């Protein structure tokens, strides 16, 4: 028995329930103890991943996040305590991992993944978990993992919907699934659209499971399949993802030869003047005739209402447009400025001409005014 084996280090009792599973056993547990996993993002997805990888005895875990714990994280990021608010996530998460399993080595990386560090970091680990919350980071992880020949476990969430897959060389990648990021502002983030807390746990634990299976070399991975989870109707479906022969990364004529920044296309210019949140009130004072057309849905009213508002939710705008006066001045607004962008364009197409758009939405305005609490 060597001193660096699990038996030598007296860790066998901790993992006894793994050792009883033939697919894991002592040999599998030794593989876990020698494995290195990089978890990019210590948020809703990353924290359950960290907890289960640490509990499972993964030898070395990189925790990468440049953020601090915010009160709005606690609804789903159950690794953190209320007393962690304001502390760097990597510091708090490292403490929890160490408390859970002191046999796990942790690399706290309080940085954001970028073009300058992505490949060098990914190279240090055997498996990468994409637990980020931006499209730019997702494409960067995909490309870095491809160039460094590392498998990566993808997960993403929105409200009640989750997606999980595994991408690795020889099979389809994230670009085969989604060739280009959606234009800026067209797909809401969790901060904008919300997310069911427990869904982060569901998808994160799926990712942890896939990461552990990759290390152990057991079972069928989600490579080549996208698992789509619908927590509201309690359904899951899977879709076959094929390797795209025209993929710019690994297709027959690759055009991407190294990692680079993936910047979502800006949206097509809006044919309507835009107001910044900072100028919103002054504009309303100068234009007392202006009406704020609030296109948020009724449930969002908990955020509070803007001044001089008329509420018509975007979902019923088409059928209620006739109630509006096309000679009237309207400032169209929603929570973050995505639906209002569509709505103002729609009104413009319908012949309205005295239109303005509140860029950044009521959330940005609220943050400036402190008139209603910004969630």
């Amino acid at each position, binding site marked *: 028995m060597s001193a660096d084996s699990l038996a030598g280090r007296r860790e066998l009792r901790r993992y006894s329930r793994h050792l009883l599973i033939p697919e894991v056993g002592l040999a599998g547990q030794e593989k876990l103890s020698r494995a290195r996993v990089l978890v990019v*993002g210590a*948020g*809703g*997805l*990353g924290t359950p991943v960290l907890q289960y990888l640490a509990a499972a005895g993964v030898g070395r875990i990189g925790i990468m996040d440049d953020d601090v714990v915010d009160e709005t994280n606690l609804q789903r990021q159950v690794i953190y305590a209320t007393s962690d608010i304001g502390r760097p996530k990597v510091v708090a998460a490292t403490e929890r991992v160490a408390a859970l399993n002191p046999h796990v080595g942790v690399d706290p990386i309080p940085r954001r993944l970028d073009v300058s560090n992505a490949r060098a970091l990914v190279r240090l680990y055997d498996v990468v978990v*994409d*637990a*980020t*919350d*931006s*499209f730019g980071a*997702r494409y960067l992880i995909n490309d870095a993992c491809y160039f460094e020949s590392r498998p990566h476990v993808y*997960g*993403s*969430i*929105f*409200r009640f*919907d989750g*997606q999980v897959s595994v991408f690795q060389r020889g099979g389809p990648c994230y670009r085969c*699934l*989604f060739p*280009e*990021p*959606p*234009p800026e502002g*067209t*797909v*809401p*983030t*969790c901060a904008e*659209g919300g*997310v069911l807390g427990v869904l*982060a746990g569901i998808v994160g634990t799926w990712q942890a499971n896939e990461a552990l299976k990759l290390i152990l070399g057991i079972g069928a991975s989600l490579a080549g399949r*996208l698992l*789509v989870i*619908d927590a509201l*109707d309690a359904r899951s*479906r*899977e*879709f*076959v*993802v*094929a390797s795209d022969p025209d993929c710019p990364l690994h297709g027959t004529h690759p055009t991407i030869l190294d990692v680079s920044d993936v910047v979502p296309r800006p*949206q097509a210019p809006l044919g309507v003047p835009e107001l910044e949140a900072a100028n919103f009130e002054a504009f309303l004072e100068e234009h007392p005739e202006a009406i704020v057309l609030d296109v948020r849905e009724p449930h969002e009213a908990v955020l509070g209402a803007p001044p001089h508002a008329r509420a018509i939710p*975007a*979902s019923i705008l*088409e059928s209620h447009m006739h109630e509006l006066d096309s000679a009237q001045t309207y400032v169209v607004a929603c929570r973050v400025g995505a*639906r209002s*962008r*569509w709505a103002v364009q*729609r009104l413009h197409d319908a012949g309205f001409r005295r239109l303005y758009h509140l860029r950044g939405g009521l959330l940005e305005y609220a943050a400036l005014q402190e008139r209603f609490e910004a969630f």
Partner: protein
Amino acid sequence: MRVRVLTFAGIREIVGEPSRTLALPEGATAADAWNALAGEFPALAAIAGSTRLARNGAFIDGSAALREGDELAVLPPFGGG
């Protein structure tokens, strides 16, 4: 012919229901089905380029032909984590 469209995430919110039956002319493609849906819900236009279509559980190009009874899933990307 009739195909059943399955909606997900932001698309489901725009369409307002998890599935919807579309009546399409014979020979219609997946792109035709998407265009019929986007015609009914103009808010879908902004994410047309980044939405993926899957026929009976496998991702396909817009040019793929549909058949009576097909199930067409429309999946938007989402980046939350």
